[in-house]
Each structure stands twice: as C-alpha cells, then as structure tokens.
C-alpha cells in the first residue's frame, strides 16, 4: 500500500534519474522534492514489521520480506531514502571476500542488482566491469590465491593473472612493481542510491509502506518483546522491528529502555572524484583494488573515483550524533595525501587530471570487521542489520535476504554465526572500546589477512586472576569475547619476531615452543588457564508457588509453624529437623525437580538424568537438529547442573536458554563465568599432582573419566574437579572460585615441579584436540550441523524416554542418512617447513571433484602431520544436488586439500587415529627422568 505521496515522490525521482544520471542530479532531486512536506502524512498505527533506515540495507530487507509474502511492513527513514552512507557509496560491487558467507552474500547481491532494472524499471547504472586485485608482494598473492580457490568452488569465476595481463586489462596501470593479480570478471559497479530506490520501489509495489522524514525515537518493549515504535510522528504498534540505521544503529539500540547493544562505530572515509580524462575512461574499465597501496580505483563518468583505507583513520560520532561534526565533514587533503601518492604511483598518467572533489563519507565499522545481523539476545522481535565495514553495497542484497529468511522462517538458509549479533555482548559496547577498535579495524581492511591474527586494541578487558603471573612467565595472549587467553609461553631465552614480521602463511616462529608444550602435555603435565569458557549454573529451585500447593494438603497450623523455615529451605536445601517437615520438603522438591529436569531434557539432546557427579557431553539442538551450542554438563547434585560452553557462547547460549525455557519454569539460570577460574591440567602426570595436593586417590578406579567432584586442592576447599580436558588427553579441569585461583595455581606449580609441570597455551590445546578429532562449536560445528553429521551419535540419546528439540529431525536423518559428514584429513605430502600451512576454508577435493571445505586445522605433533577437519558433501555429478554421504563414500575416495591453489594429498578419517600415544608413552616413561626438575 504505497501512499500516494510516496508513489509520486518515488516516480518523480525515477523520472529525474532517467533524464540524466549522476551525483549532482541526485542531490538536486533531494532538494527539490518537497512534496512530502507539503502534505503532512499520518502514520498507520500498527503494522507487523517496522524497518528503520531507508538505505540499501533497510530497502533490501523490505524488498525480501515483501517477496516472501509478508505484506504488513512499514519502512521509516529519518531523512530521504538512500540519503545516508548509501548515497555516498563508491558503488563497487565485489565478491572477493575472505569469508565464504560474505562471498555468498556478495554473489547474490550481484545477481539481484543485475536484474533489478528489468524488474523495477529503475536505472541502477549496473555495469559489469570486473575487478582486478593487485599483489605487490608474494604474501599478498598467496592471500589472493586463497580467495581465488574459494570463489571458484562456489561458482564465481576468477583467475590469478600475470602483471602483463593486468596491463592488457587496464590501460593506465603501472604494473612494474606487481607480482601478480586476481581477476574477477563478473564484479560490477552500480549506483547504490539507485539500487536502494529500485528496491524500495519494488517493495512498495509489493505493499510495503515507506515514510521518509520520520525518525524513530525508540522502540517500545514489553516483557522482552517488541511491542511498537515511538516516532516523531506518532506511535506504531508492531511485532518486529528491524534496525537498519547504519552508523546510527548503535545509538538507536541504546535508546530503548531495555538497551540493545549493537557494537559499531563510524570513521571518516575519503574518496576522490576527478573530471573526465582527455580520452574519457570507458565505463567498462575494470575496478582496481591495490590493497598494498591501500586504495581502490574505479571508472567514474570518464574520470576516476579513488579512495582507500588509511593507516590512521579518523573515528567520528563517538559521542553520538553531533551536528558540529556533521557540519565539519570536510575534505581533508593532508589526511588523503598518502592515498593520493599511492594512486599516482599506480597510475602516473593521472598527474595532469583535474580534481573535481574529495568526498568525505563516514563508513561504519564493527569490532571484528564482519557485519552485524540477527535478533537481539534480550529483546525478541528486535532485528538488526548494520555495520557493513564499507561493503554495504556488496552485501546489501544477500544480507537483506538472509535477515528476511531469519524473520520469516526463524532461520536463515546459511550459517551466519560469524555475522550474528549474538557473537557480541554488552561488553563490546563501550564507546571508548569501539572508538579504539575501529581505528584498528579500518586499516585492517587493506592489511594482509594472515592466520592467527589478534586484534591489538581493546585488549585486557576480561582477564583471569592469574593474568599477571602468566604474563610474567612469558605468556603471549589472544583474545576471545574480550577475554585474554594465553597462546603459548615464550621461554626466557627465546625471542620471537616482532608483530609485523611474524605475519606468515608458512610455518610460524612459535612452532618449536608449542611443540614442547604439546610434548609436555603428552608426557608429563601442563596447566592451561581456560577461565574464558562460558559457565552457567542451572538450578531446579523449588519456588514458593509449589510450596503453597503442597501446603494445601496440610493442616493449617503447620503452615504457621513452619513457613519461615520452609522459605529458607526452599532456597538452600538445609537439613530440616522435623520429620514431617522433611517429608513435606522432599515432596515439593521432587515435584518441582522433576518438572525442571523435564525442561532440561527437552533442551539438551543427551540424557541429563545421570547420577550426581557425572558429566555429560551434549548438544543444544534446534528443531532442525543443528547445534545451537555444544557443551559439557556436570550434575552437581540432584537439583543443579554446571554447564560449560565455548567462550563466545556467553550471549547466544543464554538467549537460547531464556527463549526456550517455559516462563513459569522453576529453573534458575545463573551466569557464573566470572566466579570461577578454570585450570586445565593435561597430561599423564596430572593424576599425581592432584592426588598429592588433595590427599585423595585420583586413579581411574576412584575418579573415572567424565566425573565431577568438589574437593580440596591445597588449602582451598570446594574446588570442582572434573576428569576431562577438552582434548581427549588424560587430565582434569579445575573450576576454582576466583579468590583461591592464585593459591591453587601456586600449589599446582610447586607440587607439579617434580612431575615436570609447565604452562601451556591454547595453541597446544588446539593441536591436541584437532589431532584427536575434537570438533569445536563456532569453528567446526554450527547451527546447520547435526550430531549425526559429525559422528556424535553417542552424544545424543534418541531414546531417552521423552522428546527433545531436534529429535524428530535426527530420527529422520538417521533413517535417510546424512548429506555431509565431518571428516578428519591428514595431509600426506605436505612439507611443514616449506609448504603453505592450511588454515580453514580450504576446498576439499575427492577424486578430483570439489566436495566441501575445511573448518579448522592444526599441526599434529604426535602424528607429525597437518590435520584438517572439514565437511565432505556428495554432489551429484549430473545435477549438483546433494546426496547421502556414507562412511563408504568417505573411505573410498582419494582426497586433496587446496591450499592457495596448490593441492596436497590427504588421508580421510572418520574416527580419530588410534593413538600412537599408548605405545609412545611406555617408551617415554623411561625418558621422563629427563624432564624432572626442568
């Protein structure tokens, strides 16, 4: 239902666009179209969806929602449609991205924009120019080759070309300093403002109502659910709200009573427009991306448009929307100087080209360089799509599609965890953090992306109490979800390379350090601080409601006599004196405990009704059987459970549990991550260390695997000791109340000395667990993988006597077979010293045909080979359709892994290699004396 006014306005814009195209015309259209002011419009009072933001993101979401059949949609724009960053966008559409999901989004956008003109009749200026990514260094070329091999397998044509070929494709380029380039012929340029208008126009034809000059003040929330939107022109009731407010999304998120934290921050971004060349540049001239020179160059109206991502970005709007700053958005030539130098080095002939304008258009960046989409963890029905890291046009179509799917179906059709809003929490929402981090992120867009890169800004936010101790012992740190985790420990006599020099696609300089840590884990004992893991306590608390129902059956005088005690009992299970009281309590506890356990059994796929003290590995599955979370749960006592999840699950897992627990449930959920320091004692000698410290037998007979006990360690009591190490190695996890952490650590280290104890870091852990085929959620597992697809049937109890989420899907899958299978690959002809190392995302070939991509990799020090984990699909040779993957299919293939265009032979394994370890350990027992006293 397009309002007449809007229709008129859209048409008028379109008409003007037709007559002549370009920047100035567009700004004319902006200033002259005053019809909306002349006729004040009244907003509808309700709708199903309200979208805030009329840029390419908002219009794309509206377009896709309306295509998918949702009609009751209102799109609000505070200024004019497509007048924010979208208007200023350089208009380059490029599919060459580092992350597969981003490649897919860009690819979809490309296809969408191409046919948009035909669909809507609005000219979008779409021209397939292709783009060329230049490499000035060998490392850059490797990076391009990695992208190239990934683009090819998802059907986007691209090739690595020689400098000579580059010169043929582009007339003005200086190619003398190039070592190669990547050519992506189907990339395009397009006018982003016109794309947004076309999407808006198509959406409004599908019934979306569009109102400009309408600002959203805040979103109304009741009981954690969106109920409406307050605008400067009145209220609109709605069930869904979509925040596509671009650089203002952060502020808009905070304006709610229940704030939604959307961590993004704007930086000034500059690009140059020139007058046409003497012989105007053809409109089909390919776009150039010279990442080593930090610039991009496209043809623009016979001249060029060139911008870049400087090393010293200027963050802006830290204090929120600031009129002064908006007015001050001026050209800053001094700031642009390095980019201009770079441009003239690349195209020396441009010296005599006349400048038209230096455009300053703020772009939005996120803390990890990936965009933000999805539903708020705290407010249901509040969706976000923002933070495009200056690739808004490339992602617009695909991102809008995925978000629309998410809203309509509850799930996007691809795994978007890497982009999910819930990967962040409130902890990334500090303005200072964002300001500092985006100053690092923006230059990173052009920096070489190497494996194991850690952000340098915004660090040391969350730390374990042992941080200083470990740091003093040479720990090098990485960060996950704001938490500092040790990577490895540099021995005092060893020097590592400086940060910049340590960037490599080959064998890293810490190789020997981690090797000795792994060796120590295998032969003696290591301690790893793993405090970052997300820890929840789930308690089935008898609530007073239940107590009252029980009381009804009792004589009234009891009530008076015992209710105070009752109250206290219900809180903390102390021993009651009176027999009857005990009876009464056990009655209540049982009834509520059962109900609560039922809820848990429904949420988790494994059977949680295990004896106290047992640990269960289990998934939290969605209806489709995919992993929402992969966790370990220890049953502390009859009524409470201790749940350990990956670090970055803190927000997602909490939101998932909250969303799926019945409102009247008596389950108490508490995030105790901050309460415990976790030490992982890995290695055959962990037993000896612990038993010496606790005077308790720790042998497998007394302390079987996957067991949890509260015990004393040193002087400290109440340490939760669990016999698991997340690596498949023998050892224990110690969950220590933080005030005891230093004590326990000191004791462990001093007692452990005679067993050869040493500190180890996450790199050692990673090598150990990948070698043992331990998949991790977030890297190998995601919401689209089921336990059956990764050989984890044992972690699912299909017949636990009751239904659980995803059971139906799993049963079906069990019957039909799986369409992909997590497989372990051991690289055969790979030279660790000389060959490129695998990372993740490398294409897997079976009998010469592409079957999937790797998800993680590590060097296995025991196997003395590289190990990759990855999914194998079975694409039909004729139709490309996915077919069932059987163990036989996997076993009967010859495999190759493509690392930056070079294929390495690999052995596929469905189960961990029966360890060489048992043998080795016996052999090494003799040699252990060497380790003593070290």
């Amino acid at each position, binding site marked *: 239902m397009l309002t007449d006014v809007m229709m008129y306005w859209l048409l008028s814009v379109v008409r003007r666009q037709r007559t002549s195209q370009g920047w100035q015309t567009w700004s004319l259209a902006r200033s002259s179209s005053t019809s909306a002011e002349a006729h004040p419009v009244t907003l509808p009072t309700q709708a199903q969806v309200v979208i805030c933001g009329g840029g390419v993101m908002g219009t794309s979401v509206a377009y896709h929602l309306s295509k998918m059949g949702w009609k009751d949609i209102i799109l609000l724009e505070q200024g004019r449609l497509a007048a924010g960053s979208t208007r200023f966008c350089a208009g380059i559409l490029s599919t060459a991205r580092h992350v597969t999901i981003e490649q897919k989004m860009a690819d979809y956008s490309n296809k969408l924009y191409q046919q948009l003109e035909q669909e809507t009749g609005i000219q979008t200026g779409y021209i397939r120019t292709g783009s060329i990514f230049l490499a000035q260094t060998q490392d850059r070329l490797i990076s391009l080759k990695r992208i190239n091999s990934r683009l090819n397998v998802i059907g986007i044509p691209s090739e690595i070309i020689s400098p000579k070929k580059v010169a043929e494709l582009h007339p003005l380029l200086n190619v003398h300093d190039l070592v190669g380039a990547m050519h992506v012929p189907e990339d395009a340029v397009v006018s982003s403002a016109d794309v947004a208008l076309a999407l808006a126009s198509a959406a409004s034809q599908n019934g979306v109502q569009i109102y400009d000059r309408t600002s959203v003040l805040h979103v109304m929330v009741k009981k954690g659910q969106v109920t409406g939107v307050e605008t400067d022109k009145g209220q609109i009731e709605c069930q869904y709200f979509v925040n596509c407010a671009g650089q203002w999304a952060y502020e808009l998120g905070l304006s709610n009573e229940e704030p939604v934290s959307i961590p993004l921050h704007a930086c000034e971004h500059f690009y*140059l427009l*020139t007058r046409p060349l003497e012989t105007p540049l053809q409109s089909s001239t390919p776009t150039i991306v010279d990442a080593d020179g930090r610039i991009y160059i496209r043809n623009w109206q016979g001249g060029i448009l060139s911008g870049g991502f400087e090393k010293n970005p200027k963050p802006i709007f*830290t*204090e*929120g929307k*600031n009129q*002064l*700053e908006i007015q001050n958005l*001026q*050209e*800053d*030539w*001094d700031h*642009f*100087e390095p980019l*201009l*130098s770079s*441009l*003239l080095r690349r195209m020396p002939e*441009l*010296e*005599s*080209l*006349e*400048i038209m*304008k*230096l455009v300053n258009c703020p772009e939005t960046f996120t803390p990890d360089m990936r965009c933000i989409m999805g539903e708020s963890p705290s407010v249901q029905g509040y969706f976000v799509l923002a933070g495009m890291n200056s690739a808004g046009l490339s992602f617009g179509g695909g991102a809008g599609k995925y978000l629309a799917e998410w809203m309509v179906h509850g799930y996007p059709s691809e795994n978007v965890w890497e982009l999910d809003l819930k990967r962040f929490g409130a902890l990334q929402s*500090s*303005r*200072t953090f964002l*300001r500092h981090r985006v100053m690092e992120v923006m230059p990173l867009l052009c920096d070489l992306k190497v494996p194991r890169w850690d952000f340098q800004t915004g660090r040391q936010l969350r730390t374990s109490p042992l941080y200083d101790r470990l740091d003093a012992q040479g720990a090098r740190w990485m960060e996950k979800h704001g938490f500092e985790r040790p990577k490895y420990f540099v021995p005092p006599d060893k020097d590592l390379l400086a940060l910049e020099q340590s960037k490599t696609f080959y064998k890293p300089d810490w190789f020997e350090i981690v090797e000795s840590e792994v060796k120590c884990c295998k032969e003696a004992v290591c301690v790893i601080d793993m405090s970052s893991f997300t820890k929840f306590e789930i308690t089935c608390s008898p609530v007073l409601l239940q107590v009252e129902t029980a009381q009804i059956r009792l004589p009234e005088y009891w009530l008076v006599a015992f209710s105070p005690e009752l109250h206290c009992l219900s809180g903390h299970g102390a021993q009651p004196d009176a027999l009857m009281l005990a009876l009464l309590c056990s009655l209540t506890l049982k009834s509520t405990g059962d109900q609560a356990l039922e809820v848990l059994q429904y949420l988790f796929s494994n059977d949680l009704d295990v004896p106290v003290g047992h640990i269960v590995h289990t998934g939290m599955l969605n209806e489709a059987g995919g992993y929402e979370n992969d966790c370990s749960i220890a049953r502390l006592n009859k009524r409470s459970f201790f749940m350990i999840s990956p670090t970055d699950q803190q927000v997602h897992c909490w939101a998932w549990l909250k969303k799926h627990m019945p409102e009247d449930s008596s389950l108490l959920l508490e995030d105790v991550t901050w309460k415990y320091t976790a030490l992982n004692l890995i290695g055959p000698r962990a037993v000896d260390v612990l038993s010496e410290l606790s005077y308790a037998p720790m042998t497998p007979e007394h302390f079987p695997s996957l067991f949890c006990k509260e015990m004393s360690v040193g002087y400290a009591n109440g340490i939760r000791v669990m016999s698991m190490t997340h690596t498949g190695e023998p050892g224990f996890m110690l969950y220590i109340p933080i005030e005891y952490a230093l004590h326990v650590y000191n004791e462990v280290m001093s007692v452990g000395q005679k067993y050869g104890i040493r500190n180890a870091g996450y790199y050692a852990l990673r090598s150990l667990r990948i070698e043992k085929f331990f998949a991790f959620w977030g890297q190998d597992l995601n919401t689209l993988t089921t336990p059956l697809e990764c050989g984890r049937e044992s972690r699912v109890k299909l017949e636990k006597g009751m239904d659980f989420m995803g059971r139906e899907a799993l049963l079906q899958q069990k019957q039909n077979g799986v369409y992909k299978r997590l497989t372990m690959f051991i690289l055969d002809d790979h030279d660790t010293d000389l060959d490129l190392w695998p990372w993740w995302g490398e294409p897997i070939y079976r009998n010469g045909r592409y079957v999937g991509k790797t998800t993680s990799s590590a060097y296995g020090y025991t196997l003395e080979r590289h190990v990759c984990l990855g999914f194998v699909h079975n694409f039909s040779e004729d139709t490309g359709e996915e077919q069932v993957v059987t163990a036989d299919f996997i076993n009967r293939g010859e495999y190759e892994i493509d690392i930056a265009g070079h294929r390495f032979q690999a052995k596929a394994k469905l189960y961990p290699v029966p360890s060489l370890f048992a043998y080795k350990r016996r052999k090494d027992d003799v040699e252990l004396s060497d380790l003593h006293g070290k």
Partner: protein
Amino acid sequence: MFSDAMPAPTQLFFPLIRNCELSRIYGTACYCHHKHLCCSPPYISQSRLRYTPHPAYATFCRPKENWWQYTQGRRYASTPQKFYLTPPQVNSILKANEYSFKVPEFDGKNVSSVLGFDSNQLPANAPIEDRRSAATCLQTRGMLLGVFDGHAGCACSQAVSERLFYYIAVSLLPHETLLEIENAVESGRALLPILQWHKHPNDYFSKEASKLYFNSLRTYWQELIDLNTGESTDIDVKEALINAFKRLDNDISLEAQVGDPNSFLNYLVLRVAFSGATACVAHVDGVDLHVANTGDSRAMLGVQEEDGSWSALTLSNDHNAQNERELERLKLEHPKNEAKSVVKQDRLLGLLMPFRAFGDVKFKWSIDLQKRVIESGPDQLNDNEYTKFIPPNYYTPPYLTAEPEVTYHRLRPQDKFLVLATDGLWETMHRQDVVRIVGEYLTGMHHQQPIAVGGYKVTLGQMHGLLTERRAKMSSVFEDQNAATHLIRHAVGNNEFGAVDHERLSKMLSLPEELARMYRDDITIIVVQFNSHVVGAYQNQD
C-alpha cells in the same frame, strides 16, 4: 642560606647584560640569587624594563644578538667547545621536566572542556624556585592549574604548590561534603579523595609536613562547617579562590608563629614563612574560567580569530610597579608620609618586586613579632643576616598581601588555549609572540590551515606536490611533543627573526649553574588546551 655573594667580580657583568636586566641582575649579584628580593638599594637607578609598550624601549631591547656576540667574545672565546651541546643533548635538557596530561576520553558523556595540558619548567636557579601544580577536583567539577614563582628560596613556593589547591577545593565544597569528610576523619574512615593530582615525577610533596598541613586544612574546613548558616547553597568560585589564598597565607604565617616541637618541621615552617611565592591559578569548569593571580606571573588566553590568526587576551594583572592600580592601592593603604618610601626603584620598600605574595612575613609581621620569632627560632635562622634584616621605612605593616585578583572569563569556541607562566617567560617574550607560537604549534599538530579545492582548477599532480611539501614542513618544524617545551625552546633560543637558533639555545643551556641566573630566570609554563567542540556545545545550550 639566602645570599651567597656571586663569586665573579661585579664589573665583569656589565657588558654582558641586557640593559633591561641591569638593575635586576645587579641586585641579584650583590645579594641573593633571586630577582624578587634585593636587600640593599641597587647602585644603578635605571628602571627595570620588561615589556614596555613604548616602541623606543622595545627597539632598545630587541637586538639581543649584540650582547650575545659580546658575550661570546668575552666569555666563550677561550673555551668554544666546552659548552657546546648537540641537539639531542639540548632536547634532553629541555624535556627533562616536561609533562603532558590528556583528559581521558570517557564514554562520550563525561566530556570535559579541557582536552589536556602540557607543562614544563627550565631552571635557572639551583635549585629551581618555580613550582607548578595541576589537579582535577574530584568532589566538585573542574580542573585546577597553577604556576608558583618562589623567591628567597623555594620553601614557600613548594608549600604553596602542595597546599593551595586543597584550600581551594575545600572552599568549593558544599556543606554536606564537608560534613561527610569531617565525619570520616572523626571516625577514622577512609576519606573521600578531593583532588587527583597530575604530577611530573620531579614534582614532589613533602612527607614530613603532611600531617601538619593536614591539621591546618582540617581546622579550615571545620570553620567552614561552623560558619555555614544553612542558607546559601551556591558557592561563588571567585570568593572561594580569594578565601583559599588568604587562608593559606594566614596559616603559613600562624604555623611559623606557633612553631613545631619537631625541630626539622619548626625550621621548615619558618623557612616557608620567610621566603615568598607568587601564584597564578586557573580554575576551569565547563565554560567558566577563573584566574586568581597574586604577583607577577601571568595567564594569557590564546584566541583564534576567524581568519585563523592568533591574538592574546590577558586574564591577569601583574602586581608590580608597572601596574598603576597597584601603586595606587599601596599608597592608599599606608599613611601619606610613606607615599615615597613604600615603593622605591619599582620595588616594595625598595626591596621586593612583586607587590603581592605568599609568605614573606618580613613584609607582613610587625617588627616585634619578627624579632620574637627569630630569637626563639633555631640557630640557623638567627644567624641569617637576611632574615634578621628589617626592611627600611617599615612603619605600618603589613605591606604585603596574598589576596589574589580574580578574573572571570566565559570560554568561547575561539578560545583555544590558556598559557600560565612565571615571569621568566614573559620577560623574554611578548605575549603576542607567545600566543602565536603556541597557536601555530597546536594547530600544526592537528591541522594546518586546511586546503580546499573549491572552484579552482587543480590537477592531481599539483595537489600531490603541495601536500608533500606541507608534510615535510610539518615533520621538520615540530620536533616537540609538548607545547610548553616548544615555548621554552623559543623563549631561550629565539634569534632576531623569531626563529630558534640552535647555537644560541645550546649556549644558553650550557651556562654553568652559577651564571645561568644572570641570563635568564626560572621558566615555568602550563599550556591548557580547550575542547572547542565541548565549549561550542555549551554555548549552543544557552
């Protein structure tokens, strides 16, 4: 302790000395290391010139090179290499005391009108008699910054630099906070912190006297609590500043009269009281800037005009003989028959250059009191000729006050920075030059005059050339990270063209300790930078 005769023969100095400094140095040479005090009448009766508005004098003073050449000939010809410092050595001397503070960026809400400050000092006396302080008020809003120029030793300036801000902060506190603090002290609970100091490691606090100082301060707030009538809730900053200055001076005087059983402390409080210090203190809270000045240090506001040029706005009046109103005041405060003796040779009673100061009880106490205190005081004091010396024509004390003159200024977006400096700076540089140098330095750090293409035909090549040139200029000129250091470099090293002359700078800095004071005074500078955005936002609110 106050006066060691200069080892060099007097006549040697005459040719070396700038005309405008003759009397001052003469006084110094004869008596003590400090210009402010001169206990015997100078032989040369030429009046002192600092920066006089008369062009004739100005040209008279300008050609500094002349005397320099002379100096070179006389002094350094025999040992030309000995004092020659390399640029890194010069830098290490200039930067030894530099300090910078940036107001931390909080969440965006807690934004301050002060971006931060740079400060530095360059000693001429040994030890230096200047002091500086900077602190953020924690219980009220605002920031305090001050420079203190001591004379007859550094005891008084040291004490004032430690204590004055506490007095000011307490004067600014609302009644309830005072009560809370008093109750906390009474019951031995932890105190609310009042000030957050921003100190260079060389800026020390005396540990020994802290208890004594604290007790005096506590007495002060107890009186403030008692005096509170419960009516007025608005605290007037101007009044608070005046009260704090007067009260501290009063306490300094009282402590010296009462003495202390600890002999070290007893000697300390007497040294504090018998030496003196001027103070120039700025209090910045949002757009409200108060400057309280006692003596001849100066506060200068750097204003950027619309065309980008710089102009200076003086926010303090010097309290010395060049100030007609001060002369008038002194004459009015004393009987008519003293009109000629109260200021002689531009000095108070012919001795003291600043007309207002902390300490200096010699100009405040009655003769009786002075004698009594000195007699009962420690031997060191008794043996000292200077302390025993009673100023001539000393009839109606007090002749000196610590009461400051307070100026209020409401900050505007064009007010970019404030320079607080002791007279060591102002006597070598004109205020206009000071503001220009700092202004250009600060904007150069951030943006030179921006280039805009607007309308002109410019090619990429031309633009590139222009930008490269600008960048080269930036990197060569601004080797200092600190505006105050930059200013000192100019103050000490400027040649006749207003450019820093390395040779001259090196010579000035390599002067032996005992000579340095003759060519320059202690210089202490604080440059406070304002946040025009925040100031502008305040303005828009109204």
